């Protein structure tokens, strides 16, 4: 628990971060920058889990372990997404979402 800080402040920061990620996901065209926006969103969710765990139920550590598992899943997701992006670039020579209208080739 951070001294002098309410739980609301932490959650407001993570909410802002989440919606900035949503903005990036909607306004970008490049697949790699969209992936970065998704990472931002996952990261803000982790902050939420940890804050709820620390402020409301510090006697057991569910939020902590869920954050650990979410980080592992984010790593797996980034690896698969980047391999798909590299394969698309090899076939189409572009990684804009608008050029990717067929996954089968």
């Amino acid at each position, binding site marked *: *628990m*951070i001294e*002098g*800080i309410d*739980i*609301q*402040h932490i959650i*407001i920061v993570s*909410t*802002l*971060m989440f*919606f*900035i*990620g*949503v*903005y*990036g996901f*909607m*306004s*970008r*065209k*490049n697949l*790699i*920058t969209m992936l*970065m*926006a998704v*990472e*931002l969103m996952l*990261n803000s969710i982790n*902050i939420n889990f*940890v*804050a709820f765990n*620390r*402020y*409301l*139920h*510090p*006697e*057991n*550590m569910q939020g*902590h*372990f869920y*954050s*650990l598992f979410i*980080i*592992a*899943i*984010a*790593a*797996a*997701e*980034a*690896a*698969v997404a*980047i*391999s*798909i*992006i590299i394969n698309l670039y090899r076939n189409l020579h572009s*990684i*804009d979402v608008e050029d990717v209208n067929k996954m089968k080739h």
Partner: protein
Amino acid sequence: METIIFYIISAILIVFSVLTVTTNKILRAAVYLLFTLVATAAFYFMMEYEFLAAVQLTVYAGGIVVLIIFSILLTHQINMDLEKSDRLKKISSALIVLLGSIIVIFTISKYPFIPGSGIEDAADTSINSIGRQLLSYGEGGYILPFEVISILLLAAMIAAIIIAKKEKE
């Protein structure tokens, strides 16, 4: 003192998040993403979850950002500007995001967060007890998700190799 540090870290987090999604150079976006991830690790340090902060630094800042930078180097010219998306799309998504965040922040500031009964006896957050809890079968043990995650990581690794490898002609 901690209050000031908290607000500084929050400012860094928000500013670099905005820069990540608005900058025109893609490599800079990746570096700004690195700054936000490190600031998040600082949050975890302030909340005394040292192990989680270390995992955040190694997996996110050390792993995912390096992976993203490598994929940028494989698919882009470094000093190329990103194609600008049209103004209407930007404005409409900004409006939606603004509306959503206002609703959520309003709800959060109204909601009374009531701590649970065990607020006084905080759990042991040493790496020793975390390791025991991750691998225990009993109550509060996380052996099943731990094993499922290991299988998921193996599957993702094989999938990444198969998708990204060159097809033989």
